[in-house]
């Protein structure tokens, strides 16, 4: 069973959206649990999950499908999106703003009341079964002008915002995931919380829950705590020498 600790109303929102066949947009900073949440919900709703990690070369054909040659003839091979539609699965496009513009165009008829997937090369138009659910995610912290979600896309989705959990909940998550004691988890969360105060003031993002779990995991495996923090938090967050020094000093202040 996938572990996910609900923070607010996100599970109820997702379930209700899914029951009404409404597509879902998850937004939040990196490493705050968006992907884990989708896996959790897929399990809870008992639906297959097909995940696509989007990147800048991902085209519409990559997700819908294409003809390929096999034994001297051509056969059609479904892409992950088409597969999800046919199976009635949850299709999760992670960091969708990274994908090429034609991907978003394919999503439009899927994410409004039509719920169809036109496959021009096959001359087919798939109608989504009730269980099909489109879920996309993005991190609004991106500052690049080329990585913004267009209004016409975002207004087709039910949006669920994710933030880092409150300290006591985050400590619970870190302890559970890394198998560490509550004190270590609390110390790491305190450290992570402090780094987030520097967001937009030297760091683009503070330490994510995921990084805190990594630090705890390395520590539980026997590495010294400061070494683990250096590797997972300090060096992962920045290359700026002054900020690196500040983070090292912070670790010293928090941990003694």
């Amino acid at each position: 069973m996938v572990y996910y600790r609900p923070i607010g109303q996100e599970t109820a929102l997702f379930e209700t959206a899914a029951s009404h066949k409404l597509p879902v947009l998850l937004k939040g900073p990196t490493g705050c649990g968006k992907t884990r949440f989708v896996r959790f919900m897929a399990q809870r709703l008992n639906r297959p999950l097909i995940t696509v990690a989007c990147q800048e070369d991902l085209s519409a054909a990559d997700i819908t499908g294409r003809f390929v040659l096999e034994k001297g003839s051509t056969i059609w091979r479904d892409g992950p999106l088409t597969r999800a539609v046919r199976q009635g699965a949850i299709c999760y496009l992670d960091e969708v703003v990274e994908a090429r513009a034609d991907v978003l165009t394919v999503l439009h008829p899927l994410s409004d009341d039509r719920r169809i997937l036109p496959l021009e090369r096959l001359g087919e138009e798939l109608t989504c079964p009730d269980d099909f659910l489109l879920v996309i995610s993005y991190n609004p912290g991106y500052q690049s002008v080329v990585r913004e979600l267009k209004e016409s896309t975002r207004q087709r989705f039910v949006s669920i915002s994710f933030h880092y959990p409150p300290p006591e909940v985050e400590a619970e998550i870190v302890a559970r995931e890394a198998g560490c004691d509550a004190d270590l988890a609390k110390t790491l969360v305190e450290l992570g919380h402090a780094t987030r105060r520097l967001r937009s003031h030297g760091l683009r993002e503070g330490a994510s829950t995921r990084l805190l779990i990594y630090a705890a995991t390395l520590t539980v495996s026997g590495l010294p705590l400061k070494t683990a923090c250096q590797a997972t938090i300090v060096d992962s967050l920045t290359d700026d020498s002054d900020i690196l020094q500040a983070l090292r000093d912070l670790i010293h202040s928090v941990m003694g």
Partner: protein
Amino acid sequence: MPAPTWPPDPKEAFKLTAREYGVDPADLGMDPDDDQQAEQAILAAFLFKNPGRQLTTGEKVGLGLDETRRSMAAWLAMVTGRRFPIAPSDPAATDGNVIFLPQALPPPLEHTDSLLFRAMALLQAGFLQHGVLNSQAVLRSIYDDWVLRSCFHLLAARYVVGRWSAAYPGIARDFRATAILDKAAIMRVNLTVVPTQGMPAAFKPLYKGLLAGENWREAGPEAAAAQRAVAAVDAITRQQAAIPVILGQARRLREAYRRMHLGPPPAPYFTGILRPEWMLALRAHDQAAEDAWKQGPTPLRQLRAAVATQGHSGGLSRKGPRGGLGLRQFIKKKVRRTLQGPGEPGELARSPAYGELRDQYRSRQHSPSPGSWTPEASWQELVDIPPAAGHEDGVPYDEWDPSSGTYRLAACRVLDRPAQAGPADSYHRLVQANRGPITQVRRAFQALRQEERWLHGRPEGSDIDIDRVIASFCDVHSGMEPDRNIYMSFQREREQVAILVMVDLSGSTVGRVIHLEQEALVILAEGLRTLGFPHAFYGFHNHGPRACQMERIKGFDEQYGEPVFKRMGNLQPGGATRLGAFIRHGAHLLSQQPQSRRIMLVLSDGRPEDRDGYRGRQGIEDSAMAVHEAQRLGVHIHCTSLDPSTGAPEYLGRIFGRGRFLVLPDVDPLPRKLPQVLRGLIR
């Protein structure tokens, strides 16, 4: 200066301090036998001065502040959750916003120097963070009694060290390590170093715990008062109790020292000094500004008085009685009628106060002064008189009124005009002085321009796209029309982006900020020239809603040359920041560019604010609406703010949205940071 000996009585301590300021105590006319008078004379003369010491050339020093300032500011922000600008001044102090630290620590340079700097910064931040200096009453109490202030300072330092140590184990260890440092234990009265040897027993318990060693154990009857005070502070468990306990104990100590004829207990180097006068002065200044706003500009007050003497006071108020004719409308009507019709001298025009106003108005008509704003200069905006002839030329923009949820039509006018030119060598001097950063920025921008990648599925190209060929082959086999886009091409240049850089030139940027803005612009301009994308530079500031000036430093269609260099090297600050108007005009300029990607980079140093009520919620909400409008025009806006205030992230987030702003509480990195921001946006 001879070293003082113990016991340093108040007169002696004051004389020493007077000498630090280069003043003969005899010139102050104080009675050398009257402690009270001596205190008052010294305090009156020096309270508002900064005894800050500047380093002399060749002076041997320890670690310099500049070497550690940036990382320390980041660390302090993470530990405290507040962003304190750090500036140089000795002794360490705070004015409530800024943490002042010595330009350099005493020699020799030691590996523990950064630890000492951190302890000093944390202590000053702690005075604010833990509420010790937040009370106006406390500041007033310790303001004019130096001995009381010194007692309060040491007890408060003790309390703050305890609070930080309880919160962070590493910090507790740092303070213990600081306590054994020789430099931390240098005893000073202001800047005068006083000996530890021979220090009165009555002082010693105050340092126990703050400093290590046996020196501070004192059990004699003279030490009893200090021991009691220290024990009381150590017993504080709730923050609400901190101020009453610390101030109460400091008062008792002060009385005890008065009876013993003792002056202020000296402060260990790392504890710095308290500056209640700075904090009171800042607060008084803010309060005065608030009060002035509430009362309105001086001429309007005079005008109101004049109206009242003419017998119209009965129903006049801002709320608009007299059948709906409020003061604002009444004045507008009267002034307009009188100014427009020389032959119709109204009753208002006969009043002496009005005569002065008319003269001011007329002089503004002929020579609008672009200097700093004064309430007197903006009275016409308040009463909404038709603007002077030259001011009608601008582009009108609507403004969002959050209280009514509607737009105010043509509420402001933006004048788009070339910025004033100065000497060209200023630009070239800045280029010379920044050769290193410029080379780096050019290289970084060059790399952006020459982004190399394969584009798949092109109608023509330098290589065959195997995947596409197979797909086309499949199409043919399936009896479909094959896709002819079967080539790959190598892209060397990316799609162009139109870039507008807008720089805040309001009056608050006077001094170091404007200088660094200018430096940042020059570096950015040199980088953008390499990049070759269409771009423009504008400065913005305003003198009321009808004179919002967009100073064109370089237009989109303008080539680099002496006219641009002369304008860029001559940025002139003044006026206010009606941000919404400038964002709307900037978006308008960008929307005329053919590129589909448009970036507006705003550089500002404070909240949107103008003198006619465009401040607070009005300024923020209108600016946020302007950003929203710009986004609808396909303009991506990012703000780099130099506002050090704690509330900056909140209002910037409201205006620009999450992830679309960067706050630099310390202005020094600006020239280096601005090109990085732009690069991040384009990449």
